[in-house]
């Protein structure tokens, strides 16, 4: 058979995975629900490079010559803005989507590096508040577990309009992950498939968002920075509207952003890549004269210190990691191969968060599986990963002559593809050409 296969021509329009998916739909009669983010390739930070030092631009020495990484978040209106030691935060992921050990480990790792974690569509757990030095508390359409005491315990509040994996979709958690504790926190019967609302219950539109933000500030004595999180849709307008509605911070999640569970079609076909959305958001802030006054945190496919550096060079104040943080915890690690196989997948291909049978104990409520994720060791992994991102960021910043990573600028970049040049508004390497841009 392998002899014959060598000479066979496959279909570009109907490759093997498409054939398998059509036949699965025919068998099951429902859309595919899965976790994590877009699997297909889209223009991203890999298509940009830094120029580095040259005869006209001089680099900084590593270690000896300082390269500052700290950033103040939320100083527009809040009485108590947050000072992060590194411009990398942990994105919102719910207790329910992740297990308690995973949330604990993320808290430990983030705190060790002086940065923040974020709650998700399930409310705040006491463990998370205890292990996180800075905790951002999300206000989602579902309002599961929402209460004023947790609002006051939080260090910042994030009003979620949408997320990159599904701009326009509500939270989803399947019955197999709604155990007693999760059910109680979310006020739901155990074992049902949770469908969250996709719009907020008590406001629609930026004019009402402004009033909602005022209420949140009144309840928390105007102390906490208020973030507004949007999925990458109309980033230019969404950013302007968040600013006008009175946000301190805009959080922008590109299409590569992950989720614990949603329809595959939503993940792959709604939202634009982080690269393009980031350009729009920064333009919007600059036009409003709010760049660096309202901070911009960007997420969706941040993997290395190079991604962090490029995002900051394009104008972000910080980045947020979700999928990458899970991978640091052990998501898709090469262990327990039989358990991956039981799910019909393999390490490196797994997107089965929605099943609750996470082989490495990260995205599960099963106590037996959770034992595979020891919070202290996992916390150290997260810390190591964040530290590596920071060192990589500093290396690139120094190579471009910066003593502070916030001094990275778009002119430090060149693009390797026409798409990336157009989306990032950065010249194609070796040329002065930016497609579609007339100075």
């Amino acid at each position, binding site marked *: 058979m392998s002899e014959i296969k060598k000479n066979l021509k496959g279909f570009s329009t109907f490759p093997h995975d498409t054939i398998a998916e059509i036949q699965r739909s025919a068998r099951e009669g429902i859309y595919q629900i899965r976790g994590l983010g877009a699997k297909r390739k889209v223009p991203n930070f890999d298509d940009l490079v830094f120029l580095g030092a040259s005869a006209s631009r001089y680099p900084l020495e590593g270690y000896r010559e300082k390269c500052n990484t700290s950033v103040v978040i939320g100083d527009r209106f809040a009485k108590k803005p947050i000072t992060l030691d590194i411009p990398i935060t942990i994105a919102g992921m719910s207790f329910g989507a992740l297990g308690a050990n995973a949330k604990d480990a993320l808290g430990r790792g983030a705190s060790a590096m002086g940065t923040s974690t974020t709650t998700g569509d399930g409310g705040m757990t006491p463990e998370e508040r205890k292990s996180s030095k800075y905790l951002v508390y999300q206000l989602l359409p579902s309002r599961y577990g929402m209460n004023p005491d947790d609002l006051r315990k939080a260090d910042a509040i994030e009003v979620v309009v949408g997320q990159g994996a599904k701009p326009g979709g509500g939270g989803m958690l399947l019955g197999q992950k709604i155990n007693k504790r999760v059910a109680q926190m979310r006020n739901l019967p155990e074992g049902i498939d949770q469908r969250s609302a996709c719009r907020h219950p008590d406001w629609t*539109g*930026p004019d009402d968002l402004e009033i909602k933000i005022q209420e949140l500030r009144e309840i928390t004595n105007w102390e906490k920075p208020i973030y507004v999180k949007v999925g990458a849709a109309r980033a230019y307008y969404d950013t*302007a509207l968040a600013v006008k509605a009175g946000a301190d911070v805009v959080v922008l999640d590109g299409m590569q952003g992950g989720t614990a569970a949603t329809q595959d079609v939503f993940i792959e076909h709604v939202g634009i890549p982080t690269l393009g959305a980031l350009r729009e958001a920064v333009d919007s802030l600059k036009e409003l004269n709010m760049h660096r006054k309202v901070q911009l945190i960007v997420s969706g496919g941040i993997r290395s210190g190079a991604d962090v550096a490029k995002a900051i060079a394009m104008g972000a104040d910080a980045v947020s990691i979700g999928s990458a943080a899970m991978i640091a915890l052990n998501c898709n690690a090469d262990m327990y191969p039989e358990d991956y196989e039981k799910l019909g997948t393999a390490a490196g291909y797994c997107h089965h968060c929605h099943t609750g049978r996470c082989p490495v104990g990260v995205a599960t409520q099963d106590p037996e599986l959770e034992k595979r994720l020891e919070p202290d060791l996992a916390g150290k992994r997260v810390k190591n990963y964040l530290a590596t991102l920071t060192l990589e960021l500093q290396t690139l910043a120094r190579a471009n002559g910066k003593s502070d990573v916030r001094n990275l600028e778009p002119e430090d970049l060149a693009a390797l593809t026409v798409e990336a040049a157009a989306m990032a508004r950065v010249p194609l390497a070796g040329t002065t050409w930016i497609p579609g841009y007339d100075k």
Partner: protein
Amino acid sequence: MKHLLNQKKTIPILKNIQDIDLVGYGKSIEIFKQVGNPKDVVKKFSLDKFSGSHAIGHTRMATESAITTDGSHPYSTGEDECLVHNGSLSNHNNLRRSLIKDGIEFKSQNDTEVAAGYISNSLKNKTSLKETLTNGLKDLDGFYTFITGTQKGFAVLRDEIACKPAVIAETKDYVAIASEFQAMAHLPDVNKADIYEPKPGIVYSWGS
């Protein structure tokens, strides 16, 4: 700039003058719009010296187009007609293209201007305002509270999902409508008024 001239005579003249914009025309409706703080706009046009049978005010929060006078409401939809809108339409681009084919002209990228064009196009074809707005429930997609001004009064319509707010206060002397009660709190005898919220998908009208 405002003009109250006959449309047939005015348009050919205006086509040759660059700096003047026709924002409305008719026997009784005058439209004033400007970018800026509402207090300043009222002062600029001396609106506190006006009297009449009915008036509509609107402050716009630009969502998907620029902040310009052209982008402000009310939009004139025809002789002695105007429209203000709270919400966001979702099929206005397609609708704009088909209205352009019907001869309607647009000055901005604003979704409300499309709704105004839809209404005036329908009224031009001798459909009543009530029927036009009712047809609009099918043809205009998105979230909206519309208030249309007419020669003798006004009409209100909320889409069938009705997420955008609206509240009406009626006494024997007046009827008032606003997005929120706060705007009406100072009206005379408002505490004795019949206060209710218009139901979704139903055209309410007074004086027309």
